[in-house]
């Protein structure tokens, strides 16, 4: 009975106190961009706080998550490139082992239903498990990471601040990493400020590119997420022996060669492109869609209209589309100090 009253008073105080939130604190409140779809993340289980976010930030930049303490999340996900890999087509794991897919950008994670190129993970909390335990990435076990963090006075204090107990668990570690990634919202590009009528304008060529994009690209790169979140075969290969993509998860032949449609936000920064990083420039990407789409059983129907492979685009149209895609670059995101390496400050 007494606990019930204390709890209710707590709720009550919290509810009335939230009026007077200071501007500094809003930096650690999840804010839904008006032009984005609703967030998919289960915030009710893991509400954002500054201490949890900061714990997640430390973990993101700390190689302690890997087997030999050489690889941090940030090795392959660097802020300057919208948290994609600035160096490698295939990122390097412990012992210099190569991955087999291009490291995707980490941005707007709170709004996604599926993660990784094959969509094998469907909750943000589980994303780090894949990287930590993969033999070609961090090659570590979750239980050993928990052990290592438990040995650290610094981390025990961070866990204490974040969760009210210094007892480290995989759940708390994953919650903290999710907090950090949930806050990594890129919604402040020139495009966003234009579309939200915040005083931004597009050049004539960018505006023309926007119209072309709507007819030639937005079937897949839909909504202001610039992806419809589906898995499609975009005609890169005729056979998929090397990487069957979505079929690796669904074990269905219908999904062979299908990969998640990536968001084009910050695409200017996230080169090289495609799951295998085969294209170095946006120009090469558009050339592929115009001229080199390959036939296969699972090729997306959008890339074979009226019996013709690919998307009809002139060189001038491609150039304008690229100019438009570059309006999706969000330097405020890639320069946001909240997401920078805390060990360098």
């Amino acid at each position: 009975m007494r606990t019930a009253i204390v709890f209710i008073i707590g709720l009550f105080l919290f509810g009335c106190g939230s009026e007077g939130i200071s501007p500094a604190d809003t930096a650690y409140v999840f804010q839904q961009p008006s032009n984005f779809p609703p967030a998919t993340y289960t915030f009710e289980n893991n509400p954002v706080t500054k201490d949890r976010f900061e714990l997640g930030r430390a973990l993101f930049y700390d190689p302690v998550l890997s087997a030999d303490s050489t690889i941090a999340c940030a090795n392959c996900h660097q802020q300057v490139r919208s948290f994609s890999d600035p160096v490698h087509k295939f990122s390097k794991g412990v012992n210099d082992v190569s991955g087999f897919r291009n490291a995707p950008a980490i941005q707007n994670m709170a709004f996604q239903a599926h993660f990784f190129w094959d969509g094998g993970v469907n909750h943000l909390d589980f994303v780090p498990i894949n990287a930590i335990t993969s033999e070609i990435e961090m090659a570590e076990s979750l239980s050993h990471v928990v052990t290592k963090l438990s040995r650290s006075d610094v981390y025990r204090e961070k866990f204490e601040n974040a969760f009210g107990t210094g007892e480290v668990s995989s759940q708390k570690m994953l919650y903290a990493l999710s907090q950090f990634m949930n806050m990594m919202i890129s919604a402040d590009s020139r495009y966003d400020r234009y579309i939200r009528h915040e005083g931004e304008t597009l050049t004539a060529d960018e505006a023309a590119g926007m119209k072309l994009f709507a007819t030639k690209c937005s079937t897949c790169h839909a909504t202001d997420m610039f992806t419809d979140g589906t898995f499609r075969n975009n005609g890169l290969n005729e056979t998929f022996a090397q990487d069957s993509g979505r079929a690796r998860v669904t074990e269905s032949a219908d999904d062979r060669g299908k990969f998640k449609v990536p968001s084009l936000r910050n695409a200017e920064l996230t080169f090289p492109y495609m799951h295998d990083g085969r294209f170095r420039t946006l120009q090469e990407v558009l050339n592929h869609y115009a001229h080199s789409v390959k036939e296969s059983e699972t090729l997306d129907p959008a890339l074979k209209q009226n019996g013709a492979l690919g998307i009809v685009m002139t060189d001038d149209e491609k150039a304008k589309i690229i100019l438009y895609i570059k309006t999706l670059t969000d330097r405020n995101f890639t320069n946001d100090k909240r997401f920078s390496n805390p060990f360098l400050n």
Partner: protein
Amino acid sequence: MKKICSLLFVGVILLSTVSCSDDESIAESGPITLEFDNVVGATNLQLNTTNTPYTNAKGEAYKLTWLTYYVSNVKLKKADGTVFEDPIKSDGSAGYYLVDENDAASQEITLKNVPAGDYTEVTFTIGVDASQVDQGAQTGALDPAKGLFWSWNSGYIFLAIEGVSPASTETENVFQYHVGGYKADAASSQVNNVRTITLSFNGDTAPVRAQHEPEVHLLFDVNKFFNGTGEQVTFSTNASRHSPKACETLAGNIAASFVVDHVHAN
């Protein structure tokens, strides 16, 4: 604003007082234990034997090195049809149990605060379903650090059974069957290997009272699992399975592998 809050405060206190006054009239309740005993036919299962003492229906000798499975969503039904549901917490800290042959204590699942009554039937799930996995990072029995979590195709391994058979062509003649997969949806053709099992107490009753602690003794028969109607296992082919579809037919063997052996009224 202050005035409204104060009024609310008084209201909330009143409400909580009213709702808590029921506490005195809580009906009688007690615990009940479900014991999950793993056997091979008529013999108790022994892990890591020096020889291969067991034989499947294909005549292949084998031994087991590991057997573990998740039990959840436990429901108990009374003779009058009313059902008690073991409470589940969204973070996995309650309602999920990992039965591991290596850990005798894990094989006895005690449910507390079960309303008094004469129970005649149990329902439970082997596996971890979408409603739970979709809640995100879990703790307790579902802590992914326990190692029963697929990272590349996220979700839990519902049942892991590993051993050795001379018939296996895998390295060191091992076999490994990891049954999991919960992401069934028509669009992606993925399979749902979560299995829910209902077993009657065969005419017996488990009387839950404040003074009685009945125990329901269940058996999981490894040979029934290998020789089921979903698939009759041969260790000579495909003896290393680690994906939902590869284990779909094995999941079909799970339900019939469990029986209620007897009930102790205690």
